[in-house]
């Protein structure tokens, strides 16, 4: 237990790695055992992240649970893990989505072993990004998280999967291609020859002319993953093609890597540049919000609708970050968390529907509420979260972001709020066409979710409701770190 | 024919041109190799000519000429063995048979 106390983060990181090893050791024919081991491993990592949440000390903005190990001292590479209030929600989010994602895929029959192996690799990468405090390791884990996506989509996907997988991979690798020089640049031009994030951000380096280039590289590189306009098209296509749990991980967690990267590396290390570029970031974010919502309104495929709604909601995150105020940043981090849970819920509901009806055409579905009340309720709850209905976590996030945005740029704030109305339009349009209305003969005999399959959905919905009723649970954890960051930003010219 | 540097240079250029012409024109690998060797010969004459007329120490030019000769020998050895291999594999020593090297 003492070891666990001092190595909590590494343990969380090791969970999926151990799961990967376990999966590799179990013969492929014993799918039951593979699933069970995956469930246990993901359950443990989820439990550990909850433990982390509970042990976290919200009164300080310093890194907690840190562990250090020299890796390549000559190149300034150190294995450092640690979390502060900004990464804590992300770790919890990953734990929850990981666990529920594994449960959601319980009925998978095709190449079970490979599927769970790749999932484990992906999750290990994601955990790694969120806890790494060393740029090199952050980048390493980032790549680790991106690559399994290709296989997961290309092998287990549906509509146009090769195209989608290739598009996604190319986009994300293009992002990496921008990131890598930026990271090297950070290490080099800081004059410190280190990748240690804390050292870099404490150094207050004057980046001179290089700052612009490095920051833009960082912003674009991470931004691609966060789906910033106009580099977002990989994301809906990827969602549509991906199998259910991969969509959950993709929209729920993977896209957050991008915004988290901007927050952690961009804002924390280069506050002056952030101040300089904030208007651009905000403008693109508003584009994301409105444009994503309008495109979602025009879609005919359920998953595309949700895919574009993610684009819209990630815009809220970026807008919150761009305001550089306590409310905006707290809201953005909260939104990352809430949106992760929410889209996971969306996709898990759609997954159930698609598994049984074999269609996601909005116009072909209809009257599902009568046939599948549980799946429909899940979708509606997620939908309500999506349009910012109170008592669901994303309401608070959007509230904070929008107030902060109105303060900084009233027009951008107003446009973003208008985006909420459009969100309401597309969510309710889907609900009305696919879930309400008279029962269709085609779907009359479709089974609803069983108790077991409902479990992951209930967990996700419960999390949304919990943080919807009690936002202070989240905001208190964030407060110290956000305040420290805002002070740094305000001190910048 | 005054014994000047220019005349030697012209000679070596002409020789080089002929060799180059051969390499470009011929399809036969051996003939192409001959063209290359002619070009190398031109270079040797050039080096020695410079050694004679322009060098502080004429030894340098000669040494380089010797190096060229060495490289030419190596090149010929490898080239010829490749030609033999190609012949064994393709039954011909024309470069037209090697177009599958294209990318």
């Amino acid at each position: 237990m003492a070891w666990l106390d001092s190595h909590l983060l590494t343990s969380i990181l090791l969970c999926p790695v151990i799961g990967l090893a376990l999966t590799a050791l179990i013969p492929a024919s014993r799918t039951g055992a593979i699933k069970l081991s995956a469930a246990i491993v993901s359950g443990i990592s989820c439990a550990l992240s909850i433990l982390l949440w509970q042990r976290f000390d919200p009164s300080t903005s310093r890194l907690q649970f840190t562990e250090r190990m020299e890796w390549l001292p000559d190149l300034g590479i150190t294995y450092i893990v640690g979390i502060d209030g900004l990464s804590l929600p992300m770790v919890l989010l990953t734990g929850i989505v990981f666990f529920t994602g594994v449960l959601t895929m319980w009925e998978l029959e095709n190449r079970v072993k490979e599927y769970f192996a790749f999932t484990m690799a992906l999750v290990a990468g994601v955990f790694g990004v969120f806890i790494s405090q060393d740029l090199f390791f952050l980048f390493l884990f980032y790549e680790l998280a991106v690559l399994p996506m290709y296989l997961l989509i290309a092998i287990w996907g549906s509509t146009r999967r090769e195209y989608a997988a290739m598009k996604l991979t190319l986009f994300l690798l293009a992002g990496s291609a921008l990131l890598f020089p930026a990271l090297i640049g950070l290490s080099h031009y800081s004059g410190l020859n280190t990748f240690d994030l804390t050292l870099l951000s404490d150094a207050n380096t004057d980046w001179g002319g290089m700052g612009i280039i490095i920051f833009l590289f960082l912003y674009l590189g991470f931004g691609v993953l966060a789906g910033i306009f106009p580099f977002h098209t990989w994301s809906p296509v990827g969602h549509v093609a991906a199998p259910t749990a991969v969509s959950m991980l993709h929209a729920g967690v993977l896209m957050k890597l991008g915004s988290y990267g901007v927050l952690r590396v961009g804002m924390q290390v280069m506050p002056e540049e952030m101040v300089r570029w904030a208007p651009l970031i905000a403008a693109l974010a508003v584009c994301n919000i409105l444009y994503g919502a309008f495109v979602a309104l025009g879609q005919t495929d359920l998953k595309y609708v949700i895919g574009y709604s993610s684009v819209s909601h990630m815009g809220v995150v970026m807008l919150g970050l761009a305001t550089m105020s306590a409310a905006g940043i707290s809201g953005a981090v909260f939104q990352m968390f809430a949106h992760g849970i929410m889209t996971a819920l969306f996709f898990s509901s759609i997954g159930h529907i698609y598994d049984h009806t074999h269609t996601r055409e909005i116009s072909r579905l209809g009257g599902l509420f009568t046939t599948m009340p549980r799946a429909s309720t899940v979708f509606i709850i997620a939908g309500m979260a999506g349009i910012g209905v109170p008592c669901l976590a994303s309401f608070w996030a959007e509230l904070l972001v929008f107030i902060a945005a109105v303060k900084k740029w009233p027009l951008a704030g107003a446009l973003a709020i208008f985006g909420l109305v459009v969100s309401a339009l597309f969510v309710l349009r889907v609900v009305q066409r696919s879930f309400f209305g008279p029962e269709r003969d085609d779907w009359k005999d479709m089974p609803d979710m069983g108790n077991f399959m409902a479990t992951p959905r209930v967990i996700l919905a419960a999390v949304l409701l919990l943080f919807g009723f009690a936002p202070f649970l989240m905001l208190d954890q964030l407060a110290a770190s956000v305040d420290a960051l805002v002070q740094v930003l305000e001190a910048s010219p | 024919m005054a014994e000047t540097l220019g005349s030697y240079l012209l000679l070596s250029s002409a020789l080089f041109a002929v060799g180059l012409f051969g390499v470009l024109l011929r399809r036969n690998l051996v003939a192409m190799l001959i063209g290359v060797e002619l070009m190398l010969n031109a270079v040797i004459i050039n080096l020695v000519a410079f050694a004679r007329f322009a060098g502080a120490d004429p030894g340098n030019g000669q040494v380089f000429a010797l190096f060229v000769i060495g490289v030419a020998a190596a090149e010929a050895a490898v080239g010829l063995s490749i030609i033999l291999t190609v012949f064994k594999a393709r039954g011909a020593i024309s470069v037209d048979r090697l177009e599958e090297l294209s990318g």
Partner: protein
Amino acid sequence: MPELSPETLLNAALGLLIVMTLAGAVLAVTLRKVFHNLLGFGLSVIGGAGVTLILGSEFVALMQLLIFLGGIAIAMVFAVMMSTPNEQAEEPRSAGAVIPAILLGLGFTALICWAMLDGNFPQSSPYVAEAWSVKNIGLLLLTDYELPFEAISILLLAAIIGSVLIARRTREPEPSEEADRG
């Protein structure tokens, strides 16, 4: 009969050698049978070695003869002999192939000439016999140029081993390789 001074004789010999070199070269590239090409090449090499000799470098001239004629040409003869006779048949030649080759060859040469004649080189220097001696060359090779010398040795060694290895591969290409290429 005018008196033949050594100067004149030397010039005449040089002219002859130049003509021989160039004529041999032209034959070596234009004749259509490889064997004839080889004979032309031999002529050209002999001419070139003569020119080198007149320039004053006996050793280089000797080496030229030895390696180009004794080594390379003979090896080529072997190569030609080992390939089938029908390969020595006339290859087709069209204006489309000849003209670009001539243009490229002449154009490139013109460039080189332009560059070389443009250069401001000293036009003569005294002939010092010791400097042209083999001893001097040997000293240079083992002092100033030791590293290139060793590198050339290694190159030659590698070339010998490599050519032996390449030439020894007598088996037919495997079917799978064929399929891959398709």
